[in-house]
């Protein structure tokens, strides 16, 4: 196992506000990581710190074994297109496509051309005149065709329709398979990307609350549904991740169950429902699902 990113006690304060709070994580080489959390949880700040765009208040960051801050050796291997990335206002799309490759040594022009066509991006349109989705497509293309060994995608698909999003996922997987690299995908459309992720980091209120392999997380929680008394009896002293109820019915999310426990639950007349990654994150970050989606 090889870490590309390693932080120890990393924090970033803005006055009284702590955007990133004592974060110690590692991102392994050539994996697709999901950086999940609510809006304002600290995702963008964390990525800004890891790419030397922000300055840490405390703690250490190693990217490829070195501090990324003002480090041309490290940063020439890194690309981070923000959700709200600013491009030179007088630029047309083609100016971006002409300048970005100079700073991304692994750029693949053919791949870029193909993506421009697939996303139907008008290259002679000024950046200012692009729709939100087209602007996102510019970031997606720079991020994918740049093939930086460490690529951050920050909510890369705001305004993209379902077809374009699927195109992004497909091209990402395809190109990642052929050119493995470390990818960090920050998003709140968790259901859509859950299967692409190998590793999941959930950040809430600046703190890391989950740092786990995606496969371990999947099936790590189950929702038990049934009459309140039966559910309570079954749940007992187990760790409860979330609880809802109507009248005499209760729906309680608990940590993973093994086969025997599942049989017991079935015998007690309880229904077991799988918990998706998105539901799990919602439970862990203490939001109602509706609220979570609304933050999109």
């Amino acid at each position, binding site marked *: 196992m090889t870490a590309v990113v390693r932080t120890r006690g990393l924090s970033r304060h803005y006055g009284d506000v702590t955007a990133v709070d004592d974060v110690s994580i590692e991102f392994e080489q050539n994996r697709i990581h999901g950086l999940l959390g609510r809006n304002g949880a600290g995702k963008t700040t964390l990525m800004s710190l890891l790419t030397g765009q922000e300055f840490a208040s405390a703690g250490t960051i190693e990217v490829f074994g070195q501090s990324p801050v003002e480090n041309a050796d490290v940063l020439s*291997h890194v690309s981070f297109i923000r959700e709200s990335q600013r491009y030179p206002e*007088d630029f047309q799309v083609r100016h971006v496509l002409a300048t970005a490759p100079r700073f991304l040594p692994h750029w693949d022009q053919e791949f870029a051309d193909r993506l421009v066509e697939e996303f139907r991006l008008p290259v002679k349109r000024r950046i200012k005149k692009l729709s939100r989705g087209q602007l996102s497509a510019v970031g997606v293309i720079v991020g994918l065709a740049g093939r930086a060994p460490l690529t951050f995608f920050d909510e890369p698909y705001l305004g993209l329709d379902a077809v374009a999003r699927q195109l992004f996922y497909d091209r990402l997987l395809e190109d990642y398979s052929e050119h493995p690299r470390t990818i960090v995908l920050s998003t709140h459309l968790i259901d859509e990307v859950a299967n692409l992720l190998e590793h999941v980091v959930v950040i809430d209120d600046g703190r890391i609350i989950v740092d786990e392999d995606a496969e371990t997380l999947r099936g790590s929680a189950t929702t038990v549904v049934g009459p309140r008394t039966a559910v309570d009896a079954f749940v007992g002293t187990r760790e409860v991740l979330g609880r809802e109820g109507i009248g005499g019915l209760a729906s309680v999310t608990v940590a993973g169950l093994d086969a025997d426990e599942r049989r017991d639950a079935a015998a007690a007349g309880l229904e077991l429902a799988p918990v998706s990654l998105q539901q799990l994150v919602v439970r862990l970050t203490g939001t109602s699902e509706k609220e979570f989606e609304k933050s999109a």
Partner: protein
Amino acid sequence: MTTATLTPSTPRLSRRLGDIVRLHLANPMTVIVVPLLVLTAMFAVMIAIALMIVIGTGDSSAAASFSKGFQYSGTSFYIFVYMMVVAVQAMNATFAYALGLGVTRRDYYLGSAVTWVLFSVAWSILFLVLGAIEQATRGWGMNVRMFTAIYYGEEPVGRAVIVFCAFLFFFFAGTAAAAVFVRWKALGVTVMLVGLAFVLVGLGFIVTLTANWPAVGAWFVASGPLGVALWSLVLTALLAVAGWALLRRATPRG
């Protein structure tokens, strides 16, 4: 877990700075075309005024008596000041973009500085050529003096140095202002301008109270245009350092 190390593939510094120069030039509209249009427009206005005088007096030789006036015209000054605008626009536009692509602030600042020095050279050459034409055509046939205004001196080399220093000064004044803008947005620039006004007024007061205006005037006369231009390099260097001091802690915002 071990740590991934880098296969050193970072381009050399010269190449990295060259890439920043090209970034500023990627869309020549803002940094080259518009300033040239501004210059052309100002030139056209000068010529129009000269024509009015010639036609109004009905005698082209009559304009000669106005050439004294023309040589004090500061029209070409506006193009210097405009370079401040160019530097602010260019750096405000590209800073966040360059950092997103993994450029260090240091490379970005040095590359931008190289760009402005190259621009100053190019503009000085243009002024020198146009100045030569102006002299050869006796002020475009009407004793117009735009590129050979009296402030530049009568000697071409001295003129070139003065023009070059002026361009440098305004580019780096723009760079410092851009750094303030990138870091603190419009509010920062406003505060800076108000502060600058206070400092200048304060200096004026001190000079007035100490009755030193004649000395100041004498210094300008003694130094001559060339001397003042060379002294401006000190100020330019200070602006360049100030710009870097501000930009090195700037963070791109959405």
